């Protein structure tokens, strides 16, 4: 029977099929942990006197709470410090490998896994973090789970789940210069809405997807959850194999050949059908930015703030009115006229080396506009090291940006890197929810290229605007 990629990976992990309303029991190949969603799960194990079943399929890092300056000092916020210390104690007690602050392999959990070669095609990957969808870029079935499920995976290395429906996101054509993976995914979310992917695994396909680098594919899959889908996938190909080969945990020798032979079977059969299909023409895409308070409220940079009164659907109209009031924006304002206070380059969406290179390329020989602060936060310490070897840190510092240590940083208001009330950002992160980057903060989601150009001009801009 012909099957989609998602169905193949699912089927290969079924420990037992549920009967009737009972879900399937799915085996989990890799469990990623961080300090925020794990403490209550470890506590649950202790209370029930249960063991961590597979510490050898579990790895932890510190990312959400960590400061990105002065990391050699104790974390100033005692509550954050306790959470990080709790992770350290739990990992020591249960025998989990942990990369703590300051370690070369520390960083955002979704940057660390792929970089170590732990994320491979056809695997099931979970983490108590909704951006686990990132790992789907390798053709893995990867999704975020809640803390009860974290505990469940700890105790059993499985999860009871009902099969997802499948949706093909066909992105045909070729991207124009200056248009990136981030613009693809923002356009997808604007098209299908924040609930459009609910209950589905998205499979991104088509020539524009095939032509993306591995890191760009991670950017696309990362934001699947912002369209409501727990997982997004891309079929593995030579780009995938080249990226994995030689990484610390990649198979080698005869194992490599066996793995690649299997990985090559991981594609949707030609005659398989999806439960839903969406088409996007890459040729038509331009840099995309958000204007509202959910990631579906986005438009091409050349557009203007929409008028809520023109929106027919009542819920959407009310949502748009509330968003504009929160964002302090007027209908009809060209997006390019919006002035920002802060530019944030980083996160599990856009904190990889290619993202830093793209932004540095725009910033080289230029300066961040006066009154604008720019934070550059590598997704991992290894990304930071590589950027420094390439001299990118100097480009950022010469341009007047801040060069930080690795972590989730300003993607979420949980560590010292936050927006002040009313402060406006152009951010390469993934969520523009009210207060996401700090109470009262106003977020516009953008690509690294738009972030860099915006930093230079002080208003939402694309690199092409710098040439005029």
């Amino acid at each position, binding site marked *: 029977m012909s099957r989609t990629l998602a169905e193949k990976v699912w089927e290969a992990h079924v420990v037992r099929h549920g009967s009737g*309303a009972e879900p399937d029991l799915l085996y989990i190949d890799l469990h990623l942990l961080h300090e925020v969603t794990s403490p*209550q799960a470890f506590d649950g194990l202790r209370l029930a006197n249960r063991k961590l079943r597979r510490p050898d399929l579990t790895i932890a890092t510190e990312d959400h709470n960590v400061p990105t300056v002065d990391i050699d000092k104790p974390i100033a916020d005692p509550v954050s410090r306790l959470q990080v210390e709790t992770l350290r104690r739990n990992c020591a007690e249960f025998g989990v490998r942990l990369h703590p602050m300051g370690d070369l392999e520390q960083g955002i959990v979704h940057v660390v896994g792929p970089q170590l070669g732990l994320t491979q095609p056809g695997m099931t990957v979970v983490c108590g973090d909704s951006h686990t969808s990132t790992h789907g870029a390798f053709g893995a079935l990867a999704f975020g789970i809640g803390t009860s499920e974290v505990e469940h995976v700890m105790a059993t290395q499985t999860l009871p789940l*009902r099969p997802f429906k499948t949706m093909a996101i066909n992105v045909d054509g070729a991207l124009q210069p200056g248009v990136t993976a981030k613009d693809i995914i923002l356009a997808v979310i604007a098209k299908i809405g924040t609930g459009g992917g609910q209950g589905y695994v998205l499979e991104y396909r088509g020539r524009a997807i095939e032509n993306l680098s591995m890191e760009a594919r991670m950017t696309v899959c990362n934001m699947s959850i912002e369209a409501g889908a727990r997982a997004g996938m891309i079929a593995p190909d030579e780009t995938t194999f080249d990226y994995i080969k030689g990484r610390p945990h990649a198979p080698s020798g005869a194992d490599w050949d066996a793995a690649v032979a299997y990985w090559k079977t991981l594609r949707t059969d030609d005659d398989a059908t999806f439960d839903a299909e969406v088409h996007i023409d890459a040729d038509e895409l331009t840099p995309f930015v958000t204007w509202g308070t959910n990631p579906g409220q986005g438009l091409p940079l050349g557009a203007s703030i929409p008028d809520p009164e023109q929106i027919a659907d009542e819920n959407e109209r009310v949502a748009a009115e509330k968003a504009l009031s929160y964002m302090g924006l007027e209908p009809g304002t060209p997006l390019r006229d919006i002035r920002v206070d802060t530019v944030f380059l980083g996160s599990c969406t856009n904190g990889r080396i290619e993202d830093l290179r793209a932004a540095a390329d725009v910033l080289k020989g230029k300066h961040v506009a006066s009154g604008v602060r720019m934070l550059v936060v590598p997704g991992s310490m290894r990304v930071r090291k590589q950027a420094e070897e390439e001299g990118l840190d100097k480009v950022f510092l010469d341009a007047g940006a801040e060069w930080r240590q690795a972590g989730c940083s300003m993607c979420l208001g949980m560590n010292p890197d936050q927006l002040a009330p009313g402060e406006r950002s152009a951010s390469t992160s993934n969520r523009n929810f009210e207060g996401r980057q700090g109470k009262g903060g106003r977020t516009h989601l953008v690509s690294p290229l738009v972030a860099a150009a915006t930093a230079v001009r002080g208003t939402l801009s694309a690199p092409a605007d710098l040439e005029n």
Partner: protein
Amino acid sequence: MEAFTTHTGVGVPLRRSNVDTDQIIPAVYLKRVTRSGFEDGLFAAWRGDEHFVLNQEPFKAGSVLVAGPDFGTGSSREHAVWALMDYGFRVVVSSRFADIFRGNSGKQGLVAAQCSQSDVELLWKLLESEPGTPVTVDLTDKTVRAKDLVAPFEIDDYTRWRLLEGLDDIALTLRHEAEISAFEGDRQTWLPTTDPLQAV
């Protein structure tokens, strides 16, 4: 988990769509390492506004939240469910729930009752015109009842059964331990482990 059959409490109309988990509980409130006390973070930004529904009597004592579509989008934080339950909510009614939120609710015993949007609108009108109206949520016949209104809701059969019985997922899964072990014995040997690599 505590079993749930039926619950009657004050209904709270929350006329908003896309209530994401950063609104339900902002990240700054996620730092606790214990399982209780998250009620202080519930809708923290909105509760600063005296007009917010939970700052009004009799809604303060609400236990059935009636919200707009796409409730619980965004982050996987189960803290969103804990915050609602620690505050005193036992049920959220919406016409559409985000998948992870719905899953987390089922694990904790918070009923995510999916009603039609037209029934949500009727509930909103009723709760706003007669604040304090008791709402009964009956998991046995899958209905939300308030005065004359009877609104059917959807919830998947397996979650419903677990909620009615108050069953712990992990204990259920561990009944199949032999099958898990058998599956593990058949896994490809080249699959990665997280064991630290030996320096070469």
